């Protein structure tokens, strides 16, 4: 069934001697990842720093990150899932032939070498990026790598972590989990949280036209989502909170300019390994913070008549 085996970045800094980046380009997208956490740091366990660590990059093209790596494995586009599943078989000594490996674009020797290095590692870590999680297969590609990491623990210590982009998306994930039990893709329409990505995830909701009012904060779907989704945002009343007038603001009925987080709005943000950090704003903004605006909208809503009516306090059987 697999699972999720992960750690904080300090563990990587102190212990990881085998670091795999899969489908990501940290050199350009997370520029300090190498220096702060993975490659360059020395620790009592890895006194020679970079020399004590091996880095592998698995990607479909040779990005700038390949220069930093000891080993670059160029996987054929769309074959990550197959490659990871082959590795799952190989670590368990299943017979795998050259012919089976061919479609991944790699050789059996490359995979055997990779497997033996993984097993020889004292502390291995997979970091995976959008090249894995956003290509065909999506969450199953991530699940595959998480499962491989979990299974590697039969041989040595191994963990996996997504390379989250976009500032504080991790914070949203963490907070939704403690308040609702679920990380994203939630509906409260029955009065309690329900979860079903594909059903309640935003692109699907917008493309099917399942919402009649959209509140957008800290994101610009008008610039990033598929056109049918954007069309629906333009069709329904859309409300945007953002430090800039964005693409989405331009098709929205209401835009409110807010102070940018960490620049002029204080608060907390979670790092990709779910460690919270305080923000220390340097500027005073002429605009209110997101926090203040959302609170005031919420208060305005509370002043309106209750639309929900009598419902039981608790349900034993959810839908």
């Amino acid at each position: 069934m697999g699972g999720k085996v992960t750690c904080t970045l300090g563990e990587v800094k102190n212990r990881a001697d085998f670091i795999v980046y899969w489908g990501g380009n940290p050199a350009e997208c997370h520029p300090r990842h190498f220096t702060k956490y993975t490659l360059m740091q020395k620790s009592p366990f890895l006194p020679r720093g970079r020399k004590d660590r091996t880095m592998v990059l698995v990607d479909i093209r040779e990005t700038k990150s390949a220069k930093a790596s000891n080993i670059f494995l160029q996987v054929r586009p769309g074959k990550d899932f197959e490659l990871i599943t082959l590795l799952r078989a190989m670590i368990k000594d299943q017979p795998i032939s050259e012919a089976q490996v061919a479609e991944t674009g790699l050789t059996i020797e490359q995979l055997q070498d990779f497997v033996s290095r993984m097993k020889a590692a004292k502390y291995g870590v997979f970091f995976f990026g959008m090249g894995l999680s956003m290509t065909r297969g999506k969450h199953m590609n991530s699940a595959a790598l998480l499962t491989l990491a979990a299974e590697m623990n039969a041989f040595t210590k191994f963990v996996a972590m997504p390379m989250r982009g976009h500032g504080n998306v991790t914070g949203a994930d963490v907070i939704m989990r403690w308040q609702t039990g679920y990380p994203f893709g939630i509906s409260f329409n029955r009065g309690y949280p329900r979860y079903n990505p594909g059903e309640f995830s935003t692109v699907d909701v917008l493309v099917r036209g399942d919402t009649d009012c959209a509140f957008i904060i800290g994101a610009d779907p008008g610039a990033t989502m598929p056109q049918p989704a954007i069309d629906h945002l333009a069709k329904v009343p859309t409300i945007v909170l953002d430090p800039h007038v964005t693409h989405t603001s331009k098709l929205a009925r209401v835009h409110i300019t807010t102070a940018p987080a960490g620049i002029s709005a204080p608060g907390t943000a979670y790092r990709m390994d779910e460690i919270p950090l305080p923000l220390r704003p340097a500027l005073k903004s002429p605009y209110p913070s997101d926090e203040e605006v959302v609170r005031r909208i919420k208060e305005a809503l509370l002043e309106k008549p209750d639309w929900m009516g009598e419902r039981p306090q608790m349900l034993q059987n959810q839908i």
Partner: protein
Amino acid sequence: MNKIKLTLKKNPTVVLETEVISPDYFLERTHEEICASVVYHGKREKRLDEFFDVDGERSDCIEIHGDLQRVRHVGRAMTRGEVTIHGDVGMHLGALMNGGVIEVHGNAGDWVGGEMKRGKIHIHGDAGQQVGAAYRGSIIGMTGGTILVDGNAGIEVGMRMRRGMIVIGGAARDFAGLQMKGGTIVLCGGAEIRTGAWMQRGTIISLKNLALMPTFAESGVYNPTFLNVYSRHLKTLGVQLPFAEVDGRYRRYSGDQGVPGKGEILIWEPAV
């Protein structure tokens, strides 16, 4: 036969959740009670008759007319009776079903027969994603019953299913039989990629050639007698499964080695 007829009279503007449209729920209820059944239009509680004309009462035989694409959870957890839909229908049709029959003259949305236990669902058109699949985080999908889809189906057909049968008349998309633990999937029109990925046990039969995962190993040709039995069973469902040696043979693959699993995929090779 006594029957309850529902006709959609007002199109929902957002999703309409109608788990009350179920033989078990309607069976002991009067016309007025059925009309007053609570449905959810988005977040708002509404009466069923705000959206449907209701004809009949106290029956476990339900006939529905209209475009129900936005109508979800029809026949949820039903244990008996019949639901017949003339038109398209939305997600979770017959999810957690434990008996009875659902027939759709049209297309169905995602999660048809999700985690169903017993009964039969027949979609004459296409079905969405996750036919007979497990919901997020569940270890087990469908555990029994039959799902027939005459048209095409989306990704993750029969994901984590343990028992039962799914027949896709057209083509399935990616990950058919993902993490399957048992049961049978018949793919009459083949499938896109990653069929049988991470399967532990169970059987996938494809009448069209498949691009298989590299972690499936060929283990011979096969004309097993049990396919004869399958074939006869499928015939009663209106599905033709070839099994005579003169017509061709099945190539057998086992996997998924990544697990490692003992599932099998049988691919039909017609005689030249």
